[in-house]
C-alpha cells in the first residue's frame, strides 16, 4: 500500500497527543496527593515515560507485535526494532510510526498504575517493578488484543485499549495497593487533595490527548476516526454530567467528581470508539459515570487505600466499556454488531477478553508486586513517608 500523507500526518499528531497523556496522568494524580508528594507523583509519570520508551523499542514492541507464539506473546523477531522498514505493503503509514503510536499507549498504561503506589513507594524498587510490569503484563495483553493473540483471534473487540490499557492498569493498581498497604495515618485523619487546579489541568490535557488515543486508533484520517472522535467527546461529557449530578444528590458537586466522571466516560468509550453510534456513546458515558462513582464510594467505605482510584475509574470503567462494546456495537458504524443487534457471540467474545485481561493483570501484578516487595522493598520507611516522597526520594520541595 502506498504511503498516505494524510493518514501519516494524523498518526504523527495522534502519537504526540497520546504522549502528552503520560505527564497529564502525572498532573492529574499530583494534584490529588498531599503537598509533600506532588513532585513525586508527577515524577513517577515522567520516569515511566522514559523507561517504557526505551523498553518498548528494545524488546517491548516485539513481545507485543512480533510473530504470534501460541496466542500469548509475540516472538523476538523485532528485538531492537530490527527489521522494521520505513514502508510496508500493508499500511498507509510508515511502520516505525506504528511503533511510536503503540509506544505511547504502553507508557500511559504504566503511568495509570502509579495510582496504587501513591505517596509511599520507594523509587528504586518502583523502577524495577515498572520494567517487569510493562514486560510481563502490558506486552502480553497488547499482544492478545492487537498483536495477533488469542483475544483478537476470538473476535474480542477493543478499539483503543479498554482491556489492554484500562482494565489492566486499573486492576494492577488495585493489586499494588493491596501489596504495599495503606498510607500511614489513612483512615485516621483526612488526606485532602492539595492542588485541585493541577488535577483539573491534568484532566484537560487527558481529554485533549484522548482524541489522539481513540480517533488515532482508526489508524487513518477517515470517517471512523471522525466517529471515534465525536463519540469520545460525547461519552466524556455524559460521564462528567452523570457523576456531577449523582454526587450532587449526596452533597456538593465537586469539580473533582466532574472530571473523574469525564475520565470514566473516556475510559468506557475507549474500546467502543470505532464501533458505536452517538446516542450509544451518551449512554455508555453516563452509565460509566454512575458505575465508577459507585465503585469509588464502595472503595472508600471498604477502607481500601487505592485513593487515586485507578481501579474504580480505569479498572471498572474499562470493564464496563468492554462489555458495552459487546452490547452497543452497530453494524452501520463499522461492520460489527453487538448484543442489541442480536449478536450474542460478540458480547461473549468481549466479556471473555475483558475478564481474561482482568484476571491476568490482577494476578500477575499481585505476584510481581509481592516479589519486588519481598526482595527490594516497595515501600519507603515510616520516616520517609512522614517527611514526604518529594524530599525523601527526590530531595525536592514544592
Amino acid at each position: 500500500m502506498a504511503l498516505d500523507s494524510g493518514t501519516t500526518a494524523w498518526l504523527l499528531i495522534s502519537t504526540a497527543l497520546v504522549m502528552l497523556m503520560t505527564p497529564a496522568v502525572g498532573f492529574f494524580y499530583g494534584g490529588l496527593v498531599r503537598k509533600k508528594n506532588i513532585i513525586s507523583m508527577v515524577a513517577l509519570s515522567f520516569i515511566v515515560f522514559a523507561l517504557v520508551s526505551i523498553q518498548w523499542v528494545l524488546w517491548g514492541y516485539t513481545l507485543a507485535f512480533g510473530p504470534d507464539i501460541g496466542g500469548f506473546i509475540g516472538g523476538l523477531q523485532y528485538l531492537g526494532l530490527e527489521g522494521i522498514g520505513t514502508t510496508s505493503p500493508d499500511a498507509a503509514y510508515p511502520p516505525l510510526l506504528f511503533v511510536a503510536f503503540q509506544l505511547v499507549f504502553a507508557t500511559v498504561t504504566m503511568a495509570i498504575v502509579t495510582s496504587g503506589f501513591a505517596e509511599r513507594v520507594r523509587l528504586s524498587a518502583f523502577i524495577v517493578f515498572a520494567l517487569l510490569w510493562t514486560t510481563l503484563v502490558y506486552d502480553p495483553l497488547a499482544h492478545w488484543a492487537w498483536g495477533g493473540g488469542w483475544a483478537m483471534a476470538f473476535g474480542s473487540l477493543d478499539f483503543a485499549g479498554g482491556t489492554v490499557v484500562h482494565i489492566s492498569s486499573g486492576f494492577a493498581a488495585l493489586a499494588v495497593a493491596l501489596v504495599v498497604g495503606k498510607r500511614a495515618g489513612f483512615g485516621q485523619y483526612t488526606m485532602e487533595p492539595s492542588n485541585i487546579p493541577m488535577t483539573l489541568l491534568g484532566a484537560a490535557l487527558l481529554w485533549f490527548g484522548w482524541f489522539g488515543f481513540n480517533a488515532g486508533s482508526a489508524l487513518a484520517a477517515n470517517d471512523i476516526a471522525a466517529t471515534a472522535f465525536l463519540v469520545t467527546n460525547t461519552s466524556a461529557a455524559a460521564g462528567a454530567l452523570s457523576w456531577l449530578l449523582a454526587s450532587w444528590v449526596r452533597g456538593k458537586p465537586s469539580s473533582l467528581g466532574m472530571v473523574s466522571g469525564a475520565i470514566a466516560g473516556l475510559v468506557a468509550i475507549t474500546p467502543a470508539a470505532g464501533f458505536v453510534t452517538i446516542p450509544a456513546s451518551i449512554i455508555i458515558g453516563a452509565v460509566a459515570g454512575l458505575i465508577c462513582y459507585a465503585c469509588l464510594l464502595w472503595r472508600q467505605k471498604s477502607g481500601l487505600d487505592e485513593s487515586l482510584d485507578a481501579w474504580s475509574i480505569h479498572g471498572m470503567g474499562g470493564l464496563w466499556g468492554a462489555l458495552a462494546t459487546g452490547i452497543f456495537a452497530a453494524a452501520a458504524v463499522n461492520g460489527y454488531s453487538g448484543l442489541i443487534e442480536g449478536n450474542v457471540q460478540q458480547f461473549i467474545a468481549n466479556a471473555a477478553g475483558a475478564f481474561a485481561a482482568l484476571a491476568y493483570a490482577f494476578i500477575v501484578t499481585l505476584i510481581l508486586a509481592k516479589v519486588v516487595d519481598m526482595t527490594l522493598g516497595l515501600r519507603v520507611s515510616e520516616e520517609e513517608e512522614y517527611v514526604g516522597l518529594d524530599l525523601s526520594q527526590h530531595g525536592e520541595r514544592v
Partner: protein
Amino acid sequence: MMIKAIIRPERLEFVKQELEKAGINGMTIREVQGRGDQKGITLTYRGGKMNVDFIPKTMVDVVVADEMAEKTTEIIMKAARTGKVGDGRIFIIPVVRSFRIRTGEEVQ
C-alpha cells in the same frame, strides 16, 4: 492568656474537636515550619544522608481567660500527642488586653 501550640498538621482535627467539646471555639491557625532539639529528621540513602531541617507544622493560637489556660493546654496536649518525636510544643504567652473588633468591647 494566649495558648500558642505548634502541632502536627494531621492532629489539628482532633485538637479542634476536643477544644470544641470543652466549649472553646475561637482560634487562629497557620502553617509554619519548625525544628526541634533533634534538628529535624535525618534520612539515609545510598551514598549519603540528608537532614530535613524544617518540618511542616500547624501553629494554633487560642486566647482564653487566664483561668482556662491550664485546662486548654491540657486538652491540646492530649489531643496533639502521638508520643513520637515531632509532636511539638505549647507556649503560654500573656495577653494584656483583648478586644472584639465587631463590637469594640473588651473581652474579659
